[in-house]
């Protein structure tokens, strides 16, 4: 392997670890990035001549020296006494601590603009280029780059600490990190860069770093379940609802990973939103074995979810499951608990109402609801799906 390829490899594998370590020692991500890119530039010159035995340790030593060098010139940087001496022997890879968890907490810190949490995490932990992130978030490159720099300055200037939050602060802070990862996962409409794989990497990493946190494991399960259905979600440009998807198109390997995360989450005896969402997905996934969807189980899980984390989307999911398990009348009633004005602006609610009304033999109202749902929907595959439904309803009426 030539130095270039080797370097790309090292960079991908250890960028986040090196950056996390450097920033956690200086409290300054910008400085750490500068030092690290300086180290990579030096590597480009030196490695072709002589490849170091431990490239990661080599990079860390060079970057650390650079940090110390810059710190001398800039007295504002508060050096903590645990920065190793530059002359100290290069640490072995497993010798230096993994500070990525602290970095993740910093990226999703409540003092940092919530809209930049996800991009910040993608850039610092995964080393993703601002340009790629900008594409996924439908922002021009410069705008994204500016926002990232602003956030890093804030972290430095406000002295956001690189630390694992105190136990009483932990749940809200973990939830911030989970939201940031989930943000990478819920891809943007028309977004050119899909970040689902990156989100899965972050979720798996977090699960590795916090192996006893039920919600962390739950999120990893949710993402794995959803990723497993990637090839079945849209057929010929038309959206396919979960319960109608061809199970042969699901990814068995990811389903297994998802199941194992969910089982580990359940073993923690600490029920939360993501674990419940994962459990709902697990019930759907079971159709691969049983051939049917267990709607009764889904009703119970949706009910649980609406208690733990009430959302409009959750209520719609509950109403849909109830409609299947008990009857459309009951489903419709559950749907009516949503404020009518809110419902009228929420496409899934109107789409579900259309389904329940047509089951009740009220095709005219169903058609109106379906049309309302279409008018609120922007994603082409979903529009196509709803348009087919509404055409069927219209045909029923003539």
């Amino acid at each position, binding site marked *: 392997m030539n130095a270039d390829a080797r370097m790309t490899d090292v960079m991908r594998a250890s960028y986040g670890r090196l950056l996390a370590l450097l920033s956690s020692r200086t409290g300054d991500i910008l400085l750490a990035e500068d030092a690290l890119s300086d180290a990579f530039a030096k590597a480009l010159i030196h490695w072709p001549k002589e490849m170091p035995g431990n490239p990661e340790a080599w990079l860390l030593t060079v970057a650390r020296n650079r940090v110390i060098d810059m710190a001398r010139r800039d007295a504002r940087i508060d050096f903590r006494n645990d920065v190793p001496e530059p002359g100290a022997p290069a640490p072995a890879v497993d010798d230096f601590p993994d500070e990525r968890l602290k970095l993740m907490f910093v990226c999703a810190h409540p003092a940092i603009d919530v809209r930049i949490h996800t991009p910040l995490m993608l850039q610092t932990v995964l080393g993703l280029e601002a340009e790629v992130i*900008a594409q996924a*978030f*439908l*922002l*021009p*490159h*410069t*705008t994204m780059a500016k926002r990232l720099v602003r956030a890093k300055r804030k972290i430095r200037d406000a002295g956001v600490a690189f630390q694992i939050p105190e136990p009483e602060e932990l749940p809200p802070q973990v939830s911030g990190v989970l939201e940031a990862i989930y943000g990478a996962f819920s891809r943007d*409409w*028309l977004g050119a860069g899909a970040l689902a794989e990156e989100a899965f990497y972050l979720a798996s990493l977090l699960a590795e770093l916090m192996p006893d946190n039920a919600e962390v494991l739950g999120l990893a399960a949710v993402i794995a379940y959803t990723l497993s259905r990637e090839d079945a979600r849209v057929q010929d440009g038309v959206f396919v609802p979960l319960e109608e998807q061809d199970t042969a198109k699901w990814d068995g390997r990811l389903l297994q990973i998802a199941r194992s995360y969910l089982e580990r989450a359940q073993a923690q005896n600490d029920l939360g939103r993501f674990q419940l969402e994962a459990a709902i997905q697990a019930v759907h996934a079971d159709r691969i074995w049983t051939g049917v969807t267990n709607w009764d189980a889904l009703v119970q899980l949706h009910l649980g979810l609406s208690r733990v984390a009430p959302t409009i989307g959750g209520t719609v999911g509950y109403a849909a499951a109830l409609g299947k398990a008990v009857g459309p009348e009951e489903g419709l009633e559950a749907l009516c608990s949503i404020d009518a004005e809110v419902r*009228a*602006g929420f*496409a899934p609610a109107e789409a579900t109402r259309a389904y329940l009304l047509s089951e009740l033999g009220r095709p005219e109202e169903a058609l109106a609801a379906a*049309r*309302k749902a279409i*008018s*609120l*929907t*922007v994603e*082409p595959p979903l*529009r196509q799906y709803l348009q087919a439904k509404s055409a069927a309803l219209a045909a029923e009426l003539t």
Partner: protein
Amino acid sequence: MRYTFLTYSRPEDFANVPPQELGQLKGLFGAYIGALKEAGILVATDWLQPVSAATTVSDGGNRIQDGPFAESKETLGGYMTVEVPDLDAAISWAKKCPMAKYGAVEIRPTAMEA
């Protein structure tokens, strides 16, 4: 019902944006306009040059002024006119406009008789 989305932004946000980045932004707009067309709701649209290229005619045509009608921090950058059933639908689409991300999209219903 017909609605027009007026997109506003601060020109200073674009002052140092290199042409290639502006090209990206155009690409984002292109995709958005494409989606409006695909949904069959686009009536008309245009993307405007900055106010430095504006000329304002007033006072019964006697006054021709180099510049915009009103100096302001946020300026109009373009518009899209769409035909959708109601305000809910208009909001759903406006939310997805690229300008909703770092500027603002003002939704104005038509005042013309049908």
